[in-house]
Structure formats: structure tokens, C-alpha cells
């Protein structure tokens, strides 16, 4: 699934832009329809005994969780509890931090993402990431922003094919009607909410199987937030979605499953305290720590 390892430059480029460039496939190399057109469907992500470190610092301890396909899983918890670190481990971005390391296993439909022969760029192509602040490429048009992921590795893609992917991705991100008449204008000229949906379009253009979102609405106004939440609800029909959020109501509204991370005290590693159906976490959590957190009783 993941293919052979690629160059370090590609790895960093993909990670720093938030795009997950597709690796050239046999089909594209032969000039046939690009592989990105194929919808492989959502996949199950499973973490088994996962420990995450920054050098000597033990950031996350012993996480075991199965993230189901076609569902939105929200990771909640106070700052420093390790939820974003864990999210970044789900597409091998954690290891880009100098000194960072991972123990345990994270699998995508049973295949180990951290296997010796696995290409991290390929992992990030299958597991896309949307970041906290909208980060469209400043010098690129709306069109180029969406096509960026495709262009990075599929230079021989036909213009008509690329047009189709751009339109489908913008439609998928609920943005097409708003930008179809200004595809050649700078992506940064859009509103904050539109920019974030543009970044989502860019991520889904390469047809990943899993979408990771790190507080995707924290920089958006309430209306733009609800638009992105509507989009998330629709995208889960095609992808496995994991979202980190500090907004309790967003987790309650937008997710099917909620996982609560916590740390006993500053300096301790974060742990997954409880995971369950969102409705249950917000009406009858099993753990007192979860109850205290979702009720806003303790910071």
C-alpha cells in the first residue's frame, strides 16, 4: 500500500505545505488515467501500544485505539495532553521534529505505517492533514492551490484531467460555486473560511483515505466554522476523519466518536483516558476525569 521510501526533500515539502503529493503510479507513468481518480475509500486506523517521544521527553504513553472508517473521531483534551502529537503520528509527521520518536504500531487497514520499507511520503499521501490556520500557497491561484498536490508528482497529468480533479475537489469542499469564476485569482484573496475550505480541497484532491484535521476551525468565525463542520459531515462518507479540537461543542456537534486525552500533571506523558460514542461521552462519560473536562469543571 505504502510503496518504497522516497527522498527527504519530498517528505519535508509535503509536510510543510500540508499537501500530500501522490507518488507516481504505474498507470500515470503509462499515460493512462491517473491513480488519483480512483476512490479507494476510507480505511481503519489502529494504534497499538503507541508511545511518542520528543528526545527524552515522554509525550504520549500507551495509546490503544481503533479509528473506524467513515466516522469522525474527535480528539479532545487540555493543552499539552498529547492529542496533536498523536494526530501527527498518524501520518508520520511527528518524526519530522528533530529528536522525535515513536514506539508501538500504527496501522492503516492492518498495514504498519512505520514498517521498515514504508515510504513516509506515501503515508502522508494516503493520510492527509488540514492545519489550524488556513495556509494556501501565497503566490498561487485558487486553481494552482488545489492542483499543487497533483502537480508535485504527476507532471504528466493532462490538463483536462487536472481540471476535472480541481473542480471535483472544490465541489467536495463546498467551494466551487463561490470560486468557479475566479479560479485564476490568488488563493489568499479568499476569506478565512474559504481559504480553509481551499486547503481541504487541496488535501482531498489527491484522494487520501484518511483526513487529519488539527483544530481546522480555530481561526474561523462561527458561520465559516459551521460551513466547515457541514463539510466534515459530508466528507466522512468518503474518508476516515480525525479532528483535534479545543471546542467542546464542535466535538459534540461534528464527531461520531470522541477520544479524551489527559495528563495527570505537568511533565507526565499524556494518556488516552476514554474513547466512546460522542453522545455517550457528552451525556454519560465513564471516567470522572472525562466528566470534569467535558463539563468544563477543570481546565
Amino acid at each position, binding site marked *: 500500500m505504502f510503496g518504497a521510501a522516497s527522498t527527504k526533500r519530498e517528505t519535508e515539502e509535503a509536510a510543510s505545505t500540508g499537501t500530500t503529493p501522490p507518488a507516481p503510479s504505474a498507470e500515470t507513468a503509462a499515460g493512462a488515467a491517473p491513480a488519483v481518480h480512483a476512490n479507494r475509500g476510507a480505511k481503519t486506523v489502529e494504534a497499538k501500544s503507541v508511545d511518542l517521544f520528543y528526545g527524552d521527553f515522554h509525550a504520549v504513553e500507551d495509546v490503544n485505539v481503533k479509528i473506524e472508517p467513515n466516522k469522525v473521531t474527535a480528539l479532545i483534551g487540555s493543552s499539552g495532553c498529547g492529542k496533536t502529537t498523536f494526530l501527527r503520528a498518524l501520518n508520520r509527521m511527528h518524526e519530522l521534529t528533530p529528536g522525535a520518536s515513536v514506539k508501538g504500531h500504527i496501522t492503516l487497514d492492518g498495514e504498519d505505517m512505520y514498517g521498515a520499507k514504508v515510504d513516509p511520503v506515501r503515508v502522508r499521501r494516503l493520510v492527509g492533514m488540514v492545519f489550524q490556520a488556513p495556509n494556501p500557497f501565497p503566490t498561487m491561484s485558487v486553481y494552482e492551490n488545489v492542483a499543487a498536490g497533483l502537480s508535485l508528482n504527476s507532471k504528466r497529468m493532462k490538463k483536462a484531467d487536472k481540471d476535472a480533479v480541481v473542480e471535483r475537489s472544490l465541489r467536495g469542499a463546498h467551494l466551487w460555486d463561490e470560486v468557479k469564476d475566479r479560479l485564476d485569482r490568488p488563493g489568499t484573496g479568499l476569506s478565512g473560511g474559504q481559504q480553509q475550505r481551499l486547503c481541504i480541497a487541496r488535501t482531498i484532491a489527491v484522494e487520501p483515505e484518511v483526513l487529519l484535521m488539527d483544530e481546522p476551525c480555530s481561526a474561523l468565525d462561527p458561520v465559516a466554522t459551521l460551513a466547515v463542520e457541514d463539510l466534515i459531515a459530508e466528507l466522512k462518507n468518503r474518508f476516515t476523519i480525525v479532528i483535534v479540537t479545543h471546542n*467542546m461543542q464542535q466535538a459534540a456537534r461534528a464527531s461520531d466518536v470522541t477520544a479524551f486525552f489527559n495528563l495527570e500533571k505537568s511533565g507526565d506523558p499524556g494518556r488516552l483516558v476514554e474513547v466512546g460514542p460522542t453522545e455517550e461521552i457528552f*451525556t454519560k*462519560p465513564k471516567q470522572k476525569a472525562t*466528566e470534569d473536562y467535558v*463539563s*468544563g*469543571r477543570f*481546565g
Partner: protein
Amino acid sequence: MPEIRVEYQEELEALEASTLGGLDLVSMALSRTMEAIEHQDVELAEMVVADDDRIDGRYLEVHQSLIALLATQSPVATDLRLISALLHILKNIERMGDQCVNICKVIPMSGHEPPADPEMLKTILTMGGQTRTLIAQAKRSFEDRSVEMARDLVRQDDVVDNLNRECFRLALEIGDDADRREWAMTMLLTGRAIERIGDNAVDIGEQVAFIVTGLFREFEDASRPS
């Protein structure tokens, strides 16, 4: 970590106290109602009817505050279950007050010196006393979040139900005198109203179980009594 949302917690606690205080008002109304029946005190009965505005006022005030809390504080988990239960039992309390009013409105219809049957009157007064015990126990089970005490309300309510059946038996045996039969009829209405107050107390107990367990289950299926 420091405790936060202190004001919200205090407001929620105050609203719970205010709601449960409504049970004290109902208990007092029922006590006066029984006294009015015992002494055929029409003025006291009128006072109970007028005083029901206090119970209704409590209902409206607390209901509004709970809705505001839902809208502004987004309560979840135990807090959400508590607020849901409070909204529910506010209605129970308001209905209990209304039943006292129903009884008191019937009292003047029996005339100045009704031909009371001592045994039936005693049964009704015993029902009233037992129901006040139920109200007090419902309140305490709520305050203590005691499912055991809440479940015991069913047993206590069976006593009220049996006394109500006893009233029926006594009414059937009251004889042919038209006035006595009419009085017995008003007592049957009274017994029925008291019995409903007891049922509302059991409903409050079910809400206690909901707060504690997160599951709502009727303690007894009214359509298929055991």
C-alpha cells in the same frame, strides 16, 4: 488544577434547591388540604387554591432560568442530566399542586356539615399523611442522589394505592342515603387526586435514577401493574 465555572455551578445548585423547595410548598398545600377536609374548612381550602400561584410561579421562574442555563452554558454529562431531570420534576411538582387545588375546589360542594363517614374520612387522611411521607422521601432521594431510596417510593406508593382501593370499597358500602353517597363521591375524587400526587412522587424518583445511572426506566409499568 483550580476549580472553574464556579458561578455556573452555584447557579445550578441554587436552581436545584429552588426546584426541590417546590416540594416543600406542595407538602404544605397537601397538609392544609387534609386539614380543610377534616374540618370542612372552606376558607382554608380557598387559601390553598390561591396559594397555588406560588407553586406555579416557582415553576415558571426556575424553568426560565434552566432554559437560560442550557442556552448560555452548554451543560453536558451529569449537569445535563440534572437539568433535564429538574425540567421534568418541575412539571411533576406543578401537577401535584394542581391536584391539591382540584381537591380544595370540591370541598365547598359538600356543604357546611357534610354527612361524613368516619372510617372513609380516616382512610383519606391516612392517604394524605402517607403521601406527604412520599413527597419528603422523593425530595431526600433527589438531594442524596439515592437510587435505593428512590426505588423504595414504589413500595410506599403501594400503601397509598391500597388505601385508595379501600376508599372504593367503603364508598360501595355507604348505603342508600343520597347525601352520604354524594359526600362519598367527593371523597373518591379526593382519593384519586391524592393517589396521583403519590404517582408524581414516584416519577421524581425515576428522575433520580436517571441522574445517577444515565438511563431512564419506569420503576413500574403502569399499563401492566404487577
